[in-house]
């Protein structure tokens, strides 16, 4: 078993094979199983519904997430035909596409002993349905864009290395890979995209690789312009980002910075070991900048994310260091690989293997649960393949289970409206009814609200904008996120009582319907909100 004898083409083939297995595990069962962040999942499914009804992100609805967050699951929906399969199939396609770039990048730049563990690690990051840093029983597609961003950024960072096995059209392929990864990040979540652009600027310092880096810049620019001519909503997107940034984009306190750093102390220590060894050997200023970039950008990203652990830029930087150490090791007379190079490769394996195993097990668990119809289906007709499962411990199951019950109640209330039902907005974290019942979505509203994260009492959309096309407003008594529901009620209650009538009140909902223009009586909504703490969260 000698890993160093594997040829680059075989490495590429192995990477693609692993990616295919991951993609099949995700896509084949055709179901979404979740134990956490159900509310986050509904954001994406609502977005898929809107996009497939012809709406365009940031033009027809407000969102601080990039347009690809909606188009990737939408692609999954168009292929599979079920909303329940939208997320897994969309992610499977993403994994395959990223694996193409990964195969090119790692096979030309890394020796097999580093290339295989690292690329499998990155592919699993993209494929695993959990929020990074959480345990195996936290199955969820929530914040999937973070994982895609990390994996894409990790791959991009490998391009710091000069290629050892040059292919025909090496520079062309390099620039194409770099540009597509950067564009993916830019239109998935802007913060990752900016880090990607920063890395490309860093690459301009390398005279041997400047060519592809410049070409990649050009391609990114051209791609951006092309997307803008079709999408035509970049400005609206930036406005939405600024709105969210006004709420949660402030600088963190020193306490928070310190505790985030200490939580990831182990990763940073290992990374520092790699960087120190490599710098000791190469003594390059560019190298110093690169490791600093990995450490710093990873830290900034994880500060912005709703995520406790898993700074993927660190293992990627460590792989670069291990490869550089292996390359600069002088070929000694007795054909013994010196200890440092061997040790760092072993160490890199130890660095990425634990989370790879964890993620592989999680992916397998999701596939097993999805193919055996475990758990409780969401009680909305089009969400029948989205299932809530309780694993081992209680976790968030009781809260989400109760929430699902309230959705069934809400669906009955809406069906009582008959023809009038449609263009529904839910005054909660997310509104699952449009997608779940196949109703026409309203235009001009927002796919999700998160109190303290995307909105607060000072930063929110004016009611005239939010409700411009809304006919039915659903006010929950059992919201999935209490603070958000309460905040929205306070902000919009005046507008609601001025323009909408309480049509129906059920166990869990108050249903308001747009008043016919003739009527003028104003009515104030009662204040009998059921208080219930919920566990929900989402990145912005």
């Amino acid at each position, binding site marked *: 078993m000698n890993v160093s004898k594997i040829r680059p083409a075989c490495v590429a083939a192995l990477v693609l094979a692993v990616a295919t297995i991951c993609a099949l595990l995700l896509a084949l069962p055709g179901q979404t199983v979740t134990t956490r962040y159900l509310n986050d999942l509904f954001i994406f499914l609502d977005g898929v519904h809107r996009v497939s009804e012809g709406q365009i992100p940031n033009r027809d609805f407000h969102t601080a997430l990039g347009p690809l967050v909606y188009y990737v699951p939408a692609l999954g929906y168009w292929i599979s035909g079920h909303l329940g399969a939208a997320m897994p199939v969309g992610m499977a396609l993403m994994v395959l596409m990223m694996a193409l770039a990964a195969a090119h990048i790692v096979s030309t730049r890394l020796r097999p002993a580093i290339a295989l563990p690292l690329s499998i690690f990155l592919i699993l990051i993209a494929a695993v349905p959990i929020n990074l840093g959480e*345990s195996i029983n936290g199955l969820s597609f929530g914040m999937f864009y973070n994982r895609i961003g990390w994996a894409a950024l990790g791959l991009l960072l490998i391009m710091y290395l000069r290629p050892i096995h040059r292919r025909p059209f090496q520079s062309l392929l390099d620039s194409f890979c770099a540009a597509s990864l950067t564009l993916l990040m830019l239109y998935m979540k802007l913060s990752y995209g900016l880090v990607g652009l920063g890395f490309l600027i860093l690459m301009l310092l390398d005279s041997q690789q400047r060519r592809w880096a410049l070409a990649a810049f050009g391609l990114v620019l051209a791609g951006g312009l092309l997307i803008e001519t079709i999408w035509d909503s970049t400005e609206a997107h930036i406005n939405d980002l600024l709105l969210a940034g006004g709420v949660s984009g402030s600088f963190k306190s020193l306490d928070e910075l310190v505790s985030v750093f200490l939580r990831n102390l182990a990763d940073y220590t*290992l990374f520092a070991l790699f960087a120190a060894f490599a710098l000791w050997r190469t003594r390059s200023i560019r190298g110093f900048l690169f490791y600093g970039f990995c450490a710093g950008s990873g830290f900034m990203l994880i500060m912005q994310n709703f995520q406790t652990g898993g700074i993927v830029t660190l293992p990627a930087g460590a792989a670069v260091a291990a490869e550089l150490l292996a390359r600069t090791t002088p070929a000694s007379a*007795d054909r013994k690989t010196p*200890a440092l190079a061997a040790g760092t490769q*072993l160490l890199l394996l130890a660095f990425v293997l634990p989370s790879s*195993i964890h993620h592989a097990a999680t992916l397998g668990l999701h596939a097993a649960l999805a193919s055996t119809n475990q758990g409780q289906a969401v009680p909305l007709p089009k969400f029948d393949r989205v299932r809530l499962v309780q694993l*081992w411990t209680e976790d968030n199951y009781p809260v989400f289970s109760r929430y699902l019950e309230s959705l069934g109640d809400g669906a009955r209330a809406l069906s009582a409206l008959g023809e009038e039902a449609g263009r529904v907005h839910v005054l909660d974290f997310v509104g699952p009814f449009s997608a779940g019942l196949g109703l026409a979505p309203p235009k001009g509203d927002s796919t999700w609200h998160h109190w303290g994260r995307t909105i607060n009492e000072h930063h929110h959309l004016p009611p005239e904008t939010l409700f411009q096309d809304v006919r039915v407003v659903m006010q929950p008594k059992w919201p999935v996120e209490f603070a958000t529901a309460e905040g929205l009620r306070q902000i919009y209650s005046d507008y609601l009582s001025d323009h909408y009538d309480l049509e129906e009140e059920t166990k869990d909902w108050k249903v308001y319907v747009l008043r016919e223009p003739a009527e003028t009586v104003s009515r104030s909504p009662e204040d009998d909100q059921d208080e219930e703490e919920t566990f929900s969260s989402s990145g912005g």
Partner: protein
Amino acid sequence: MTPLERPTAWVSGTLLCAAAAFGLLLALPGQTVTTAYLNDLFIFLDGAHRIASGQVPNRDFHTALGPLSFYVPALGYWISGSMGGAMPAAMAATTLGLALPMIHILSSRLRPVVAIPYGLFLLLIVAVPTNLGESIASLSFAMFYNRIGWAALSLLLVLYLQPGNPGSRQNLLDALCAAALTLMLVYTKATYGLVALAFLAFMLFDSRQRRWVLWALGLIVLSALLIEAFWQSSLSHLEDLVLAGQVSGTRGIVDLSLAFLRHMTDYVLLAIFAGLVLWRTRSLRDLLFFGICAGPGLIIQSQNSQPWGIITVFAGAAVATEILLRSRRLAGHESHGILAQGAPLLLIAFLLPTSLHCFMALGVHSIAATARTGEPFGLPRFGELRLTTLWLPGNRSFMTDYLMSIREGARLLSELPVKPENVSVLDFANPFSAGLGLPPSRGDYAWLHWGRNINDVNHLPPEQLLGGVDVLMVPKAGINGIPLRNLYGTYIQEAFDPIRHTDLWTVYKRREASVLSSVGQSLEHAKPSRVGAGDGM
């Protein structure tokens, strides 16, 4: 022999200096700063107070923790002379004490590149004043016995290796070290002691090391008999252990697998090490040894109230590194020696994050203690103890509220017209006897942790628990006062009179010359308390 002298001296010197330095960092400020598990700290201050007043564990009070868990803080109290200096001085003394067998074991069995990082790691595990797996800012001496247990057990496991260059007194010293460590474990916390004994039994199968193992076992039996001759409470200790075991002794498969998943990183690393070794040696004994490092550690960890830290896994990694380095020398220049060369680096990288973390926490405690950070506890004899929050996120009001209630309780007690003789607190721990310098209570539990060493099925009858008490403090909520009140409420109403009543406490005084009738037990269930502490078993 001679070429080995120098590295051995290096190892001994470094480890001794490090142990002294860590000990000084702990003990010199003479203050205890804590941000968490206040209630747990009170158990051991009360324990030190009891021992200093002449009580004997398991004879004069009930405890499922071994007697050393009380004699160690008492030693600290004796050294420092103050309650606030007791725990830091105790842990400093333990760190230094552990350094002695460590120097012998590590320098005779591991080469310096393995011995020094591993030794420093173990010393830091003992010295750090936090619960393993918690944040640097979560300072507390709570569950110090777990850290002693992990470090001593992980040191003992290194004896698996045959000594590199056996000296004339090797067997004698080996036996002494093994016996001392095992006795320390048995009398600190029984779960660790059992694993240590099982390891010694496993070592009997090694014909080349059987000699010292037999001596060690003999020494252990002799010492146990000698201890029993003085202590005379082994049986009642066992009874307390059985009671605690009935309440919280078993862990289900779900708990164990979740604990396994939490330690996935460590296990994967151990698997890499073990894989490298077994690929080379193909020895069943090696496989069993790695099993001992991995398996019992998981059970101990899930018994502990500790989010992370199966330290025996690191022992397995250190031993594996040494085996790899030894086999490389035998294999000479063969190509498969490549990976073995990387093993020390991997080991250092494995040990470094935790070592750094512990060292930083130790430093934070020293700085906070020297700077007198936080607010003093406010009880007369607790002047050198402080509660602070540092930069811990989340709501810390639970601990401050608890401290407020303790202060009010102390005020109530000192206002009593007659000085109480035997104060007991119907809650997690009793901070008043030690804090006010009252005579300690007798015959009760060192601590009561609902769902851990007491529940509504397994508990002492009220006559036994509260029979000798003359003043009983009953908190409104406390740490887990409510379920205890439900359990013993009827007896209290029959045998005691309430004399003071505030928002936080009811003070009861024993009714004079009253006839006590038997008390039925309340079956009302209550939620387990919010503190993960006092996990004695």
